[in-house]
């Protein structure tokens, strides 16, 4: 290939013949308008997927199928690919649109028939790279660009598969511990394949209103899976199957409803391995996949694949203050005379709630939940509670990382009570008499039995709890808070309230010895927060001009064919799933 000299600022395209002869340099940085509207679509799997650019029809460039196009931005080579469709000159449009593909697409053109037995993943990739990649297909192999996990004893068969299918399958194997180690596969600008471990560090943290505007947010439930019915073919009779077990995620079923699949595994997989596979699939697909698309993102540099924090607009959001459909995460050791259990009667949301039975000796006993992630700057707490015998005073106590506490007190009074009737809420105050179902109940709280009550209040703590450095209160900036206590010295008026910065624990404290049975369905916290989403960048659509570089970015998991492949592979009996036996 002819040597490429430095490109000028702006967008530059260099066109090469299939044998590497440079025959054109196109640029829009000189206002000549030689190229217009370069658009590139780049995928996490494969790299450059397709491209288009436009030329005046009266150009005299010998562009043909397989002409190679190198895309430079501000002197840096971003991507390259090949022309898939040569423009036809006998058309009326004054502008020709040239379309092409990334080099990974060439892997679709070669079919292989190959099997490996008890080989390492690295050896399999090395063997395929050395024997099937090269000048005939135009995609090459360099061992130094292969970074895969050490996985031994893989038995796998590729029967009439394209090389692209082969590498997709091998990438799935590399990603068997996807939660902790994410690998990508792509063909780079040297036209060589790469297996690369993505960093677990955030690539970037973008904020709506600053780095981007008006994202498109959606949730994909098409791949949800929370129950697997596992079957296995019989060794003696391949056409017959035996039931192995049912594997499921109850919290996901509780949250999303039942999504199940029947999977038939090959006879050589033992039950432990099948359990590992199913549990892996459940972890991966038990939650719906959030998708966020950002359009017209202004950029200076090529974007990287990996983990992004996408913080959508700041607003008041309810966060879970404690999970009430599981006992996981709860410390129940301080419950001696009280009991707490999972129940499925009187459900308000989901499939399970916590049922409390209290009585003599319960006062002062508590259970405590440790949040998986802290809730920041929360200022209102809310519970949904159902008393089935008598009304009991309880406290919901939120604790921040410094040990400061804020309480949501459910006392036996009318203060801040909100009656949840499934349709509307009414605010009550101490001096109100109020109606439920057309019955004036005056001050009798017993009328609140056997129905769900929504109770919420501001959760704040005093300045004295949160302000630990009273000596900093001096000078003019604190005038509004300083009061002269007669000593001639300013002192702090500590009557104010502040919020907790980070709530890390939620405690439910029983304040009575009277017998009672009650249920709690939700404990939530309201926070003025950004709705942050930790997501993988999956696809980039660049729109490149010298004046501006824009990209549409698509975030979310797009590896949605693993299950289908798994089913297909299981039935074909050629699967590399014995890697799960090692986990």
């Amino acid at each position, binding site marked *: 290939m002819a040597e490429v000299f430095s490109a000028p600022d702006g967008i530059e395209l260099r066109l090469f013949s299939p044998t590497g002869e440079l025959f054109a340099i196109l640029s829009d940085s000189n206002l000549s308008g030689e190229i217009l509207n370069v658009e590139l679509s780049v995928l996490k799997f494969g790299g450059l997927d397709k491209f288009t650019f436009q030329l005046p029809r009266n150009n005299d460039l010998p562009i043909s199928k397989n002409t190679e196009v190198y895309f430079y931005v501000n002197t840096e080579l971003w991507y390259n690919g090949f022309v898939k469709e040569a423009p036809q000159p006998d058309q009326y449009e004054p502008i020709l649109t040239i379309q092409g593909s990334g080099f990974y697409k060439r892997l679709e053109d070669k079919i292989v028939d190959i099997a490996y037995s008890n080989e390492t993943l690295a050896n399999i990739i090395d063997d395929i790279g050395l024997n099937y990649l090269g000048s005939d297909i135009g995609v090459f192999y360099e061992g130094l660009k292969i970074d895969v996990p050490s996985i031994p004893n893989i038995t796998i068969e590729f029967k009439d598969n394209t090389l692209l299918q082969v590498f997709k399958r091998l990438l799935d194997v590399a990603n068997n511990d996807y939660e902790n180690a994410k690998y990508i596969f792509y063909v780079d600008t040297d036209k060589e394949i790469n297996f690369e471990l993505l960093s677990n560090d955030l690539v970037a*943290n973008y*904020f709506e209103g*600053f780095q981007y505007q008006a994202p498109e947010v959606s949730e994909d439930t098409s791949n949800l899976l929370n129950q697997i019915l596992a079957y296995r073919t019989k060794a003696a009779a391949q056409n017959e199957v035996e039931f192995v077990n049912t594997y499921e995620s109850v919290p996901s079923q509780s949250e999303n409803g039942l999504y199940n699949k029947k999977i038939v595994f090959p006879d050589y997989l033992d039950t432990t391995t099948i359990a590992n596979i199913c549990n892996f699939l459940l972890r991966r697909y038990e939650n719906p996949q959030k998708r966020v698309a950002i359009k017209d993102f202004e950029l200076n540099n090529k974007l990287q694949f990996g983990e992004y924090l996408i*913080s959508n607009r700041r607003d008041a959001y309810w966060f879970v203050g404690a999970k009430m459909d599981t006992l996981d995460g709860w410390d129940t050791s301080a419950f001696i005379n009280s009991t707490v259990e999972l129940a499925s009667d009187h459900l308000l949301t989901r499939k399970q709630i916590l049922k409390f039975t209290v009585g003599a000796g319960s006062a002062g006993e508590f259970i405590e939940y440790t949040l998986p992630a802290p809730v920041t700057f929360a200022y209102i707490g809310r519970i949904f509670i159902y008393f089935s015998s008598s009304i009991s005073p309880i406290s919901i106590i939120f604790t921040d990382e410094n040990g400061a506490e804020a309480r949501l007190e459910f006392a036996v009074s009318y203060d801040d009570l909100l009656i949840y009737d499934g349709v509307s809420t009414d605010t009550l105050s101490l001096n109100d008499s109020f109606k439920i179902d057309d019955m004036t109940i005056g001050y009798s709280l017993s009328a609140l039995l056997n129905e769900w009550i929504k109770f919420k209040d501001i959760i704040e703590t005093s300045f004295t709890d*949160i*302000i*630990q450095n009273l000596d900093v209160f001096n000078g003019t900036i604190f*005038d509004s808070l300083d009061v002269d206590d007669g000593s001639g010295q300013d002192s702090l008026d500590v009557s104010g309230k502040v919020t907790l910065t980070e709530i890390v624990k939620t405690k439910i404290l029983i304040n009575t010895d009277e017998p009672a049975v009650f249920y709690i369905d939700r404990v939530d916290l309201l926070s003025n927060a950004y709705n942050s989403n930790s997501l993988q960048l999956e696809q980039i659509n660049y729109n490149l001009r010298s004046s501006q570089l824009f990209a549409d970015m698509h975030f979310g998991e797009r590896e949605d064919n693993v299950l289908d492949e798994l089913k297909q592979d299981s039935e074909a009996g050629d699967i590399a799933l014995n890697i799960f036996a090692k986990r």
Partner: protein
Amino acid sequence: MDRRIVYALKDADGNIFKLNDLTDTGIFVGSLTYTDESLSNDNRIAEKSSLPGSVKLGKTRTQARNISFAYNRVEGVDFADFIAAENELIYNFNKTEYVIDINNNRQVKVAPDTYALTYSEGAHKLSGEGSVSFIMLDPFWTSLDVTTYTLALSNGSNLIVINNEGYIKSQPILTFAASVPVSIVKAYINETKEGIRIDDDTFGTPGFGTMTVDCITGLVDINDVDRNSSIASHTGFFSIPVGENNLILEVNAACDVQVDFYKKEYV
């Protein structure tokens, strides 16, 4: 005392091009007028379904608006003189990022919209009436006078009472300076509960003693190195509401902070 207001255009590099000055002589200046103020709000209004009248849904939002300047260009020596002045105006108009009110030291972020010129005598092209119009990207004026608060922060929670004397909430720039590692920094407005948390082990280590939290541009940097990735989930850039507010600052080691903001006005 001449009380006329001098307006100028500022580009991305900070270059200033005055639209008028107090002399109003020569062909490069003419009489400048900026007389109209208008402001419109975006409201989502729905008809009440059973009763007469309507209801407003959501919040009132002030929309982008236009700002226009009209001028009379006095007669030039010849066509070349006259047209050179117009070309210079258009050149600066097209690269304008801010319109500045020099007398009152305030500015507004804009995008150039339209330029128009009507020659007084078409055949001579030696004088004319023109106008330039901008889209105000922020629908308000921002003071160029910074309001600053400083405090030496102790380990733990600290408080600054901040008074925003403007009429629209302002976005602050917080500059922290540390000589020892300060791995946790939290800042929030108690009245709105909006705040940011930054977890960064490099802040306060040698060579990384200055951290800037710029709530105008949406960037956190430590000694000019981008650290947006250190912003904790669900927290981020915040505003200072109008009036007196309590800014709570929580740090896990002593450091200094300077809070800067620019008050804003509608007209």
